[in-house]
Structure formats: C-alpha cells, structure tokens
C-alpha cells in the first residue's frame, strides 16, 4: 500500500498536503483525496470492527455502495471512508460496532 509516484498514463499532480488525525496520530494526507485513500496510503486497512462478531472490516467496493468502510469521522459514526474527502484537522477513528 503506497502512493503512486510515476505512471505511464496518469499524470500524478503535486497536491497540497494537509494534516489529519487517525487514532490521535498525525498523518499527512493529500488535498482532495478520500479518507480511505489517505489511510491506505499509510498502510492502514482495518477501518472498523463488526457489531456482532467483532470482525475487522475494510474497504470493499470503494464507491459508496457496500458501507463496509464506515468509520467515526469528526466525531460522527457510520461515515463512509471511501466517499468522504479529507480536510485539515479531520479526526478519524476505527469504528467499534455501531459506533457511539
């Protein structure tokens, strides 16, 4: 899991870096990317633990359909990480079950 640096077809633009907080840890994210992309770029892929069996879940569909990737974002539970764009100072937490 890493960011692309060079690509034969896609132009990788220099993007402004911003700070987000994942489990109180400072991470550098790129402006305009999704929470899911920022976390994957840093090697984090467990986004929540399921309510009934406490099993780890991460991204599945990547386009907002499956809700497997829901997290607690800015204090709000059940937010889809693959559909939410990062912003400066955003706080992100692994969701436990139905969230608080």
């Amino acid at each position, binding site marked *: *899991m*890493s*960011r*692309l640096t060079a*690509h*034969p*077809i*896609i132009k*990788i633009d220099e993007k402004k870096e911003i700070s987000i907080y994942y489990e109180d840890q400072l991470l550098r994210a790129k402006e305009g*990317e*999704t929470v*899911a*992309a920022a976390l*994957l*770029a840093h090697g984090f*892929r*467990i*986004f929540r633990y*399921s309510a009934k069996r406490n*099993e*780890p*879940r*991460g*991204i*599945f*569909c*990547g*386009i*907002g*359909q499956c809700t*497997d990737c829901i997290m607690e974002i800015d204090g709000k539970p059940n937010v889809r990480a*693959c*559909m939410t*764009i990062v912003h400066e100072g955003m706080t992100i937490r692994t969701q436990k079950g139905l969230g608080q």
Partner: protein
Amino acid sequence: MSDSGEKSYDVIIVGAGPAGLGAAIESGKAGARTLLLDENQKPGGQLFKQIHKFFGSKEHFAGMRGFLIGEKLLEEAVKHNVEFRLGARVWGLYPDGCVTATDEENSLNFKGKKIILATGASENALSFPGCTLPGVITAGAAQTFVNVQHVLPGKDFVVVGSGNVGLIVTYQLLQAGANVIKIIEAAPKISGYGVHAAKIRRAGIQILTGHTIISASGRDQVERVIIAKVDENFNPIEGTQQTILCDTVALAVGLSPRIELAGAGGCEMTYSKTLGGVLPVHDDNMETSFEHILIAGDLSGIEEASTALDEGRLAGCRAAYRLGLMTLEDYTSKKVMILNRLAELRCGPFGNKRMLAKEEIWKKAV
C-alpha cells in the same frame, strides 16, 4: 416531509455516468428542462477510472481513453443547459414522477414529467471463508484507488475472474507498479477479450483457468489465499489445493444492475443471465412498464460504457419526443441511427449473445 421547495423539470435523470450523460445531452439539446442527479461529488460515473482506450466507432469515441470521454460528455451536457445536482443520493421514486433525494443534511424533492434511471451496476461479491477480511476488495475498488486516488490498495494481488474487468484491472495494477501474482478463473477458458488476455500474458502473468478460491486468511487482514482446481461442476477437486501468499484479493466476478430505484418506482422486472440478472422490462425505446420511466445503461443490462452512452442518448431522445419537443420523424431517424450503432457494438461472439438477450427483453415489453 414537506412539499415546499419541490422543483419541477421536464426530465429528471438519476445517475451521471455515460448513460445518464448521454440522456442529459439529448434531452437538453431538444430543449427539455433537464436535471441530472448523482450521489457522487463528481459526474462521470465510473468513466473517470477508465484509463484504457475504448473500442467502437467515432460516435463512441473509439481510441480515446475513458476519462477524456467523461470530460467531453460533461462539456456537452453543460453546453445544453443541463442542471447538475451532485452529492444527492436519490432514495425514492413515486408513480407521480416525484423523486426524493438527500444530500446528507437535507431532504430534496423534485418532480419530473419523465424520469430516466441510469443507476448503473454494482459489482458482485463472492462468498468464501475470509471473504470479509480487509484486503478482499472488488476489482472496481482497486481501479478507483489506483486510477482516481493514485494509491495502491495493496502490494501483492490475486485477481479472481478473467472477464474484461479482471483483465483490464490487472493490467492497470501492473501499470501502477503492483505485483499481480495470478489471475484465477473458474471456467475452463478465459472469459474476456483475446486482446486484453494477450497483454496480460505478455506481461508474464499467469491466467489459471479451471481454478477457484477456497479461502482467504490472515491475522486481521489477508495474508494468504488457498486455491484449488475445480471439476466440470465447479466443485473443488481434493488434493489440488495450493497456497498463495498475497495481501490483496481483487474480485472481478461480474456486475448486477442496480435495480432498487426502478423497483421503488414499481417497474416490472425480468431476468436475463446474459445481461447480469434481474432488470426492468423495457422496449427498444428504453421505456419501462411505466411510460414515464425510462432506463439506460447497465441498469437495463450489463454491457459497456459505449452501449450505455448510446442507450442514454436514445432514452433522452424518446423523452423529448414524448414531451412534444421532437417530431416523430426526427425521433425515428435518431432511433434508427442509434440502434444501428448499438447493433455494431452488439456483434461478434460476445456481443451477439447480448443482442439476442436484449431482443428477448424487448419482446416482453409488448
């Protein structure tokens, strides 16, 4: 829910992928007051993750890469005064043409004389022990992360499914610098186009046919998968299991029409294996069992972006004609032109099956 602030349109289109954009362009061009709704912040549907060149004719932008086609279509829709409402997730469709949506904060109500549904498809999942582990993703997700977000969602991939999606996504993963260990395919032969398969083989990636995934496992995320050979009934053969170390499994096991909204609108449904499962009955004007609800694109049968675009155009023209904004003569000539182009896309061993399946559906509509 209050009715206040309900806005009226001639044509409301749900879904801003190639089908929705095609419909919006034609309806806007004919002078219909057109609204295009999409739950994403950006229109284009899945076009912006397509970095490969498209097939088809000039009208299908053959030779152009998907994301550039997306930009061209957007430009055209804007030129024809289509109103966009992005970040609006449509959840309700009523017999009187009322469409309800939410933008996370507010409830939004719209009313349309004609509704064109272009809600697309969702990727199929596959059930096996470990299929919910982080690291098991759809091929489309891999494509979104790599081509749109520019992040590799894993390092060592196993791709399941050798249809065009599996083959194209494998190639794009390689272009992005990922390691694709193998493609596995349960069928006895590769199911996608030969040109795509040849590219994969040239890159040295093995396509293992007659194999299925048995399980994925690892501590809190994928660390390995077990695969096995299958017999002619797709049952795993004892003693053929092998373990592959990998961190990501990308599933390319087909797509299904996203029918929820058409179902909410009361559209009659039918089933077609070739076209991806349950879908709304429709005729060759793209009208469903309700005259005022039209459909286009993957919702009306899983095909390709090019067919979706043309079906969208046809639906847009039909809506304009029904609204009295286009003469029967004009509509008929456009319809013939578009259906001819679609017939070109629906030929060859793959396309022909889809053509026959489409004709079956059209017959049910009368």
